[in-house]
């Protein structure tokens, strides 16, 4: 049962093969039994889940069920959930019980979904390995000595280890796609503004975007149907219609034009990953696609630009965590300055502090033009690169990451090496474009991801392309050993 997709589970619920309560109890029991190996959940919400499942069963019995009614999912612990600890994997918010729901959580609740719990992540979504979590690192189900990627490492590991059929994630520089690739699952970062950010604790406001992490492209479409839409509480959300993301899944790929950026296949990239990616491209050619080499000449600049813009926004976004109204407050502050310094000094971990310092520096008087403004100029160049290429091809493809999952601790003392792992994913966030990662092979027993990039609001196209690949291959059906 645990290998079933959302679509399959939905069918099972509808036909009465099992109830939502039975399904939920099974998953809760599995999390309890198995997650000690992976540490993919920060909180398991048994009571809430069973309550939601019972309500879903009533709806199903009454014939009022929607597609999502009774389906269990997990939320990355960056999404505020009413009455539940929402920690962002930080000591700073270890005691924070959110009094409200994020829009995404509200939407899933209204759709009848069951919340199994809150998944592990890098602290405040800052990291590519899930090692910066206050609750300890999450482990890759394919090899528990390895990282699951980050920052949505808990969501990726939980789906991969079949502790939940699907989970929400958030992606600021690759935080959905990179862990999806490293854990062998499907992850979609929608176009910036497609999914409301309200209640998704901000890391870098102009880059953050929530999205689905699932077993298949079809499931990602089902999830996005629930998540997407304009929200008047998020001024940056897109005020445009939400299509049915499952509608185009079965379209054939005849004549699909694929662009392969030469910059994505050069430099420090694992040779096996490059080969796996090429093999996947061959598969698309068999499905009727045409391929041509393209160029995104400013790709290399995306890392420095990103590591100015994201920390700059973060340094301001994280100012609210001051020990005054909620969250961690130091013991016995002697005065206001002491309260600030120690609450923030003790409440934030080293990676978060590093980014706050970098961001504050980049915004400070005298440096603003040289850093922040320059980074914004680069951002425009990167966007223009993509716009130009996407006027010539339908989708861009390449590897999601340059390497497979690395060992826990391997890169934690070298932040820049860690940052380099996001080289292929960051640029999409800077441009605001949608991107997916789907499994396309394994290297030394570890999964690798194929990244598919589309034009603004072309999620339907991405899902169609991914689904057709998954109909033709079975990389997405492979599971870690013993699962």
């Amino acid at each position, binding site marked *: 049962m645990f290998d079933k997709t959302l679509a399959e589970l939905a069918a099972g619920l509808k036909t009465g093969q099992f109830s939502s309560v039975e399904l939920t109890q099974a998953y809760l029991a599995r999390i309890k039994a198995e997650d000690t190996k992976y540490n993919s959940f920060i909180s398991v919400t048994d009571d809430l889940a069973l309550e939601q499942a019972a309500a879903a069963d009533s709806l199903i019995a009454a014939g009022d069920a929607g597609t999502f009614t009774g389906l269990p999912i997990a939320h990355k612990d960056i999404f505020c959930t009413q009455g539940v600890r929402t920690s962002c994997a930080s000591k700073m918010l270890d005691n924070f019980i959110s009094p409200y729901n994020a829009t995404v959580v509200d939407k899933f609740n209204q759709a009848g979904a069951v919340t199994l719990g809150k998944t592990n992540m890098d602290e405040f979504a800052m990291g590519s390995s899930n090692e910066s979590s206050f609750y300890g690192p999450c482990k890759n189900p394919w090899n528990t000595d390895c990282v699951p990627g980050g920052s949505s490492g808990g969501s990726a590991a939980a789906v991969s280890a079949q502790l939940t059929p699907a989970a929400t994630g958030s992606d600021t520089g690759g935080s959905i796609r990179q862990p999806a690739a490293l854990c062998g699952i499907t992850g979609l970062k929608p176009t910036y503004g497609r999914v409301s950010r309200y209640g998704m604790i901000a890391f870098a406001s102009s880059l953050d975007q929530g999205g689905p992490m699932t077993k298949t492209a079809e499931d990602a479409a089902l999830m996005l149907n629930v998540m997407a839409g304009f929200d008047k509480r998020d001024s940056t959300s897109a005020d445009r219609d939400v299509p049915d993301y499952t509608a185009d899944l079965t379209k054939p790929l005849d004549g699909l034009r694929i662009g392969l950026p030469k910059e994505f296949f050069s430099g420090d990239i694992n040779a096996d990953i490059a080969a796996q990616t090429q093999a996947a491209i061959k598969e698309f050619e068999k499905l009727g696609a045409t391929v041509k080499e393209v160029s995104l000449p400013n790709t290399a600049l995306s890392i420095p630009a990103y590591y100015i813009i994201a920390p700059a926004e973060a340094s301001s976004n*994280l100012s609210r965590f001051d020990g005054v*109204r909620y969250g961690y407050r130091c013991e016995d502050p002697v005065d206001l300055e002491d309260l600030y310094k120690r609450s923030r000094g003790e409440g934030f971990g080293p990676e978060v502090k590093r980014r706050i310092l970098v961001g504050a520096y980049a915004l400070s008087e005298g440096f603003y033009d040289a850093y922040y403004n320059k980074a914004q100029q680069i951002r425009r160049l990167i966007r223009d690169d993509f716009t130009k290429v996407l006027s010539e091809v339908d989708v861009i493809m390449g590897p999601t990451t340059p390497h497979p999952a690395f060992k826990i601790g391997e890169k934690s003392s070298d932040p820049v090496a860690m940052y380099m792992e996001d080289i292929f994913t960051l640029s999409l966030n800077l441009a605001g474009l949608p991107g997916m990662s789907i499994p396309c092979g394994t290297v030394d027993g570890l999964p690798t991801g194929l990244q598919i990039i589309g034009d603004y609001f072309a999620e339907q196209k991405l899902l169609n392309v991914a689904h057709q690949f998954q109909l033709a291959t079975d990389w997405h059906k492979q599971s870690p050993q013993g699962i």
Partner: protein
Amino acid sequence: MEWEAVIGLEIHAQLATKSKIFSGASTAFGAEPNTQACAVDLALPGTLPAFNEEALRMAVKFGLAVDAEIGRKSVFDRKNYFYPDLPKGYQTSQLFHPIVGIGHIDITLEDGTTKRIGVTRAHLEEDAGKSLHDEFPGMTGIDLNRAGTPLLEIVSEPDMRSAEEAVAYVRKVHSLVTSLGICDGNMSEGSFRCDCNVSVRPKGQEEYGTRTETKNINSFRFIEKAIVGEIERQIDLIEDGGRVIQATRLYDADKNETRSMRSKEEANDYRYFPCPDLLPIVIDDDYIDAIRQTLPELPDARKARFIEEYKLSEYDAMVLSADHNMAAYFEVIAKTAKDAKLAANWVMGELSKLLNQHDIDITNSPVSAEQLGGLLMRIKDDTISGKIAKQVFEVMWSEGGSADEIIESKGLKQVTDSGAIEQIVDEVIANNTPQVEQYVNAEPDKRGKMIGFFMGQVMKASQGKANPGQVQGVLKQKLDALVN
């Protein structure tokens, strides 16, 4: 040496929107602490601002009223600093692209001359909460009800040269924002407050002296006092061989002096950058024109109309048109009494006197415009004299009631019965023989003045109720009869 002051002002006007600039919480003043602060105002994790467009419309109205450039694309920026009453750790403001650009305001000085003061810019921003230092010994309370209240910060050019000019400018801005209906103008509640930038330089010198900024002054009188005091302090300092240090100062109304709050060296680096949670505000000519259509009459136009329509003097028209509430009050009375001059005299005289004495705003006047209009009607139709009217007005102020009710219950109706008046006149003539003899024997051109004595006696005998016009006529007739 002769010194010249240079003054520039930053005025914070709270915009009269019902809800906050970035959240749906109410902006009403005076609620229990923290009862009007929602998740967004508390800056709970994950919350985002949603811009209240009503604040934009109000800002554009102001921009049009001061003939300013309106920003077709304005952008919110974050001003980052830590303070407990600033929940997000940054204030959302507009630094680089304000909604209102360069404009101007004409002020009229007491000698009747006018002067044009430049408006550098006006931008939208959110107010902070309040820190309560006295209520909790050893601790600080935070009330976030005010956090997120929309402010329009109006920045002037350093065009003013005296406290008088500064106060005239502040009054004019106050008059504009209240007339536009975009600010309630309540200075004691902090809805309208002023930061004064003051420097001095030897007269004739082009370059500016070092300035100080005195923050958050919330009355016209304190603005004047603070500026006068700060100018004197700076001149004394320089003349004693010292130098002015650029600093932020606080005005202490109790001691009537400014004192240093922080120097420039301690100033924050606010790390301004465009707020990524809010889209730039883009507006077009149609939007601006539609707002232009809704502009109410502004003080300068109203003043001109008062001169034209009511034949008021320049001075009366200026005083009555400045405050739109006073102007509206005046117009009700002028129309009820059908005598603009009489209405003007009463509003600027008796009414203003009592309002000032009791420190009451005209909108809270215990005597309504309808009541006062009714009173003036009774002067006009000779039911009572102007003198009795003042008595009626005092009763009206303290006890309420219409003019007719008070006149009736206090028996103040003017005596216009000519028989009754003649009787009193006869008694006065009979009881004041020496004065009558003087009158009879006086030169004819001196008699006019002497009649005043008899007038006084008759009014006294009638307890002020006799119609003065009639008394005068009867007296003159009877006394002149004695001469012949």
